[in-house]
């Protein structure tokens, strides 16, 4: 898999918790205070740990996709994807989910995903 750890070392835990706050808003804050189990096991806290492959279009792709979702979906789906499937997915994100990207940006994202995350066999 094309995964790397973005944040290694002790800072990881704190960053993970901070990210959870951002991602889940009040939910995370409230649950954090009322959950001794969570407080006792901060080292296994859920966090975004996937980083996309470096390459032309990386920043635009990450910026566009993470408005709504973490990037694990991309490598996780790579085995089911090729250029045509990514084209369909990007179009769906734009047309059905309201992703605020121009046609030119959509093309750059497609080039990046097709080049780096096309794992469909046969």
């Amino acid at each position: 898999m094309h995964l790397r750890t973005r944040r290694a070392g002790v800072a990881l835990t704190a960053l993970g918790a901070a990210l959870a706050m951002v991602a889940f808003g009040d939910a995370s804050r409230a649950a954090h205070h009322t959950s001794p189990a969570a407080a006792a096991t901060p080292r296994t806290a859920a966090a975004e740990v996937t980083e996309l492959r470096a390459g032309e279009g990386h920043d635009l792709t990450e910026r566009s996709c993470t408005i709504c979702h973490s990037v694990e979906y991309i490598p996780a789906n790579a085995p089911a994807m090729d250029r045509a499937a990514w084209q369909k997915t990007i179009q769906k994100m734009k047309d059905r989910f309201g992703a605020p990207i121009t046609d030119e940006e959509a093309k750059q994202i497609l080039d990046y995903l097709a080049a780096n995350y096309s794992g469909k066999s046969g």
Partner: protein
Amino acid sequence: MLTRREALLAAAGLVAAGARAEESPPAGASGGGELLAALPGKKPLIQRAFRPPNFETPLADLVPLYTENAVFFVRYHLPVIPQVETASWQLQIGGPSAQSPLSLSLRELKSSFPHVSLAAVNQCSGNRRGLFSPRVPGVQWASGAIGNALWTGVRLRDVLRKAGVAASAIEVVFNGADTPVLPGTPDFLKSLPIDRALDENTLIAFEMNGQPLPHWNGAPARLIVPGWTGTYWMKHLTDIRVVPAAFDGYWMKSAYRIPTGAFPTARFVSQETPETTPITEMLVNSLITSPAPAARLRRGEPAQLTGKAWDAGSGIAAVEVSVDARRSWHEATLGHDLGRFAWREFQLPLDTSRAGPLEIAVRARSRNGAAQPETLTFNAAGYHDNRVQTVRVEVS
């Protein structure tokens, strides 16, 4: 073997990846290394996605008859998930085909209607999507987007009757408190046919296994649609609308659909087109919980095959097991019957007197005669994988 990612994370103390690796579904089934991580209030689960949160229950946690709340799988479509304030929460019941719209606090919901408790399997429509061949896009679940719980609440039909269901009612539409980030993203709304909404087993639940619903499983109240896949079990329920026409939201018209006529499940006539129709009931299916894939059994020591079998509410008639690569089949012993919507435990002693590989296959049969097939009915969304499961172990 740890992947590089897992090794790095383990070194950072973030996950006990290695400790539980063998409890995870087989490698290759889901596209690589798996990360075990805990949401606030949950035990570590297999992190399929962080945001929106999609977390799968490890196989070892599916051994108990009732799946513990802290390990029950988590599935969301939208990233904004508010912590609902129980004290101020109001459930709105209305719509064009409701004659007397009303609003209920949690206290009123609990005190106005008889309470019902029911054991039922909640299985994500996409459970086992990651095992599809060829692979299909979507959350790459292995076999753990499922759990069995005792749900306590009130009957939806009692609430709907108080709202006065008009003769024009065709569907009932449900909304929960979760919302999208972007204005252009369709909110997650689902509908049920009016007859399924009025079924005595469809509940608005506020308890799960005797405890208030956990946040990540829909607090303070969620829909329970026994026999139907999890997509209809709306979490953090806020609005119920009785409507005189097919609801045309994205999550009904464009998502969660299967080819029309491809599966022997309940029809959803108002939403059906010649090509596609909404997924509805679960198919008869089973899961081997022990031994784990690739386990080593000690020669001459007692060993048990155990697992769970379920369907959409007919109940399980029999579970057959083969330990010789499907040459012969033996009937397993069924465990306690918790009710027709719950899963049923099965077990069979394994013969460990001879060293060598065992290829274990399990097939469940429903009381309605349906049995698990050997082949997958391929569909683009990756639903309804109820193929006979095979687990290979070694006696040595």
